């Protein structure tokens, strides 16, 4: 039996059948013993029931995307079987309840396990999950005690539940005792660093707490709601405030009030709420108030596709409001970056005294993954330069950034969303509009981000952004292995773009931007800045598959120089 470095398992069925938790459990158990794992989930918008599937990719080495075709499909019902069977690659396995009648697929192996029946035997009918896991432990050749240990830990103190689940695991395993495993995943190598297994939204929330968030105000919206829920629970204590707003307009304006009052403040939303926040974001830019606005993107436009992933809010993030403004935008591209980018967002907001937009997306928000535990002591946190002088301070006198007066201390002024003079009073004089406009844009110079590159000497390059990073990175590695001479660039800092990165990109003959939207939004931004950029787009509500993306990049390179349609 060939050994392999990774395996992808998909669980598909109805909401309520344990589909949602199955992938997470597999991934969590696997990381517990030293594998690397990453989940992908897509939900129905229906509350109970409705078609749903999740997937776990388990590997001996770190993984960065949900991956390509699946190795094992666990189909909980007929519809799920028919919906997903074509995505199992040749030689793969489909695990079914006997109630499902499979087609004859020559290149697939169908294995039946009576999920519910065996579960009932344990006395805990909700243990169907565990029966599946037991069977899986055989099929992927993973010692069943990994799962047992995980169960013991998870349900510690609830002995009856532990026992039933252990029995279920054994029953599932026993049922497939004679079945050949799909392959041998090999012994995991436990990383020698501390790890956390965490979802993107949680990483983002903890990042905000590390950055020193003091004020959170948000309105529920998928897929950003978990951030609200986390904050409500954990942002407590003297001088701290986490609260549900009555609308996104209230949320954005509220955090601006708090930013004005000296607090590190944040709100999180998704597309529709983000659009409603536009006027407020413009106000924060104009009045020079630090705050962080998180947009966990879903499919758009309008109410759009609330439970699907997309990267189509970049244009809106770059120009959320009328008038001249250029709001800094940072986009997380992985679960680690959900943490890091949030700290950066706060640091930037404090440093340049203005709003910062943090983009995440559905697939990252719901992705659970093992990552190296962030070394908090090593991740610097910045706070604004507070004015400490006497009264009579002219807040907006200088052409550059100036210390920030905090109410309750000296330096009273008027923060103003109308064009203002050095006192903060409303003015219509051209000289002040010129001065203040240049002041606002000038402060952006303080924000210089970093970027990564690989094989930078190649004349063509690929640069993904946000959550397409992982798929693109894997595609890039495949291409490099296949001998393709292409450069890799990546940055979280979309606005302002790192100047050195821009210089490098401008020198390329072609820069390919894989992105999950129709318009090729980031490619268009790069072109406007003098880069010969072309997008590779996908607008299915799902992430790129690395191998497919690699093929598309290769095809694009072959056609380079040919005119490329631009989606306006």
């Amino acid at each position, binding site marked *: 039996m060939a050994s392999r470095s990774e395996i992808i398992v998909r669980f598909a069925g109805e909401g309520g059948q344990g589909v949602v938790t199955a992938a997470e459990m597999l991934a969590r158990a696997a990381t517990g013993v030293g594998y690397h794992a990453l989940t992908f989930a897509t939900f129905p918008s229906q509350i109970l029931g409705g078609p749903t599937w999740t997937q776990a990719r388990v590997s001996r080495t770190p993984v960065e995307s949900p991956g390509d075709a699946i190795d094992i499909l666990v189909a909980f019902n007929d519809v799920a079987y028919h919906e997903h069977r074509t995505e199992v690659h040749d030689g793969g396995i489909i695990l079914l309840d006997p109630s499902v009648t499979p087609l004859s697929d020559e290149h697939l192996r169908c294995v039946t396990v009576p999920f519910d029946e065996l579960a009932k035997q344990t006395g805990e009918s909700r243990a169907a999950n565990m029966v599946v896991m037991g069977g899986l432990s055989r099929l992927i050749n993973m010692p069943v005690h990994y799962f047992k240990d995980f169960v013991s830990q998870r349900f510690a103190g609830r002995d009856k539940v532990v026992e039933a689940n252990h029995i279920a695991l054994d029953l599932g395993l026993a049922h497939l005792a004679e079945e050949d495993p799909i392959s041998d995943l090999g012994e995991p190598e436990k990383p020698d660093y501390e*790890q956390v297994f965490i979802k993107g939204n949680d990483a983002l929330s903890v990042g905000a707490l590390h950055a020193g968030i003091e004020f959170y105000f948000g309105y529920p919206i998928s897929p950003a709601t978990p951030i609200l829920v986390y904050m409500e629970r954990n*942002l407590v*204590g003297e001088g701290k405030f986490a609260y549900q*707003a009555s609308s996104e307009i209230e949320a954005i304006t509220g955090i601006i009030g708090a930013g004005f009052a000296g607090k590190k*403040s944040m709100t999180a939303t998704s597309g529709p709420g983000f659009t409603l926040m536009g006027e407020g974001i413009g*106000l924060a830019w104009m009045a020079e108030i630090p705050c962080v606005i998180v947009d966990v993107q879903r499919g758009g436009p309008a109410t759009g596709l609330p439970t699907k992933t997309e990267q189509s809010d970049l244009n809106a993030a770059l120009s959320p409001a009328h008038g001249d403004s250029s709001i800094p935008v940072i986009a997380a591209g992985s679960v680690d970056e959900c943490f890091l980018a949030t700290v950066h967002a706060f640091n930037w907001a404090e440093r340049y005294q203005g709003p910062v937009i943090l983009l995440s997306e559905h697939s990252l928000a719901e992705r659970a993954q093992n990552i190296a535990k962030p070394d908090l002591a090593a991740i610097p946190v910045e706070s604004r330069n507070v004015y400490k002088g006497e*009264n009579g301070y002219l807040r907006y006198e200088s052409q550059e950034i100036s210390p920030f007066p905090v109410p309750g201390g000296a330096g009273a002024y008027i*923060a103003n969303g109308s064009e203002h003079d050095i006192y903060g009073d409303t*003015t219509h004089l051209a000289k002040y509009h010129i001065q203040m406009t240049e002041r606002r844009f000038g402060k952006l110079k303080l924000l210089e981000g970093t970027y990564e590159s690989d094989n930078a000497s190649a004349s063509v390059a690929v640069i993904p952004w946000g959550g397409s990073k992982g798929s693109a990175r894997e595609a890039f590695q495949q291409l490099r292995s296949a001998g393709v001479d292409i450069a890799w660039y990546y940055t979280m800092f979309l606005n302002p773009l790192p100047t050195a990165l821009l210089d490098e990109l401008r020198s390329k003959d072609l820069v390919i931007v894989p992105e999950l939207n129709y318009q090729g939004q980031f490619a268009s931004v790069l072109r406007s800045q003098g880069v010969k950029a072309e997008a590779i787009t996908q607008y299915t509500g799902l992430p790129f598959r690395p191998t497919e993306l690699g093929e598309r990049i290769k095809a694009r390179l072959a056609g380079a120089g040919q005119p490329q349609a631009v989606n306006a």
Partner: protein
Amino acid sequence: MTGTAKNPEYDFLWCPGCGDFGVRRALEFAMRDWNIEREIPMHDNVVVAGIGCSGNLVHLYEGEQPYGFHGIHGRSLPLALGVKMAREDLNVVVVAGDGDFLSIGMEHIAPQASRNLNICAVIMDNGVYGLTKGQSSPTTVEDTVTSSTPYGKLESSLNPLDLYLTLGVTYIASGYSTKPRDLAGLIKRGMEHDGFSIVHVNSPCTTYNDTYALLKGNKAKGIDPLAWEIPDDHDSTSKSAARGVIEQGGVPLGVIYQDDSRPSLDQRLGAVRERVTGRSAEDLLNTFAV
């Protein structure tokens, strides 16, 4: 150029006779007394202003300056919420017009009432959109001809006092701009009240809706004044008495309602903090440890 004592270049001024002059004076009195009594500096006060002639009060404030936030149209309440809940020690006062507060800003009143947010909102009601030159507002009287209602306003006018009472605002006062001393008292009491206070002021717009004559009435001509003093024996702790005052119509002057029994949002949060302790980022991160 008009200018202010602070800022010689500032070039906005209300029209002669505008009610907002009196409201400014009242706020200045109230805040001065507030500071003196508490021996606190002016910079412990924050004035959050709406957009309108009324909101310009924040720039025209005379003497020592409080902090100010002049934001965007209709959003003074959520801005004030941000300031107050960020810094519960500050005295936060909203100044806004009827259009700002009751039309585009309407959505923000109910939540603050439910929360009993501890701020004081001073609303300058002139029954018109002054700054945009005379369109109808929610409090414009039905059938009135304005630039935006050339054939008469087709809507009934909103009774803001009744609305505040229904929504559970815990301090409701009604005042008149020509009586800055009285008004100062109402405002100060609103600042002192632990909870959401609204001082709704009739502040006539001499240019687009001059109601001075109506408010004052004319004894000689037998025209009753619209404005009337709430009698001393009014029980402002009674919701039904308050409703009674409002239902008498006209412009009652004085404190209509005050409920000191409901804790304010900051007080309630304080109670939660006694029960629940927050954890450090490091601790929280460890809950995800593999």
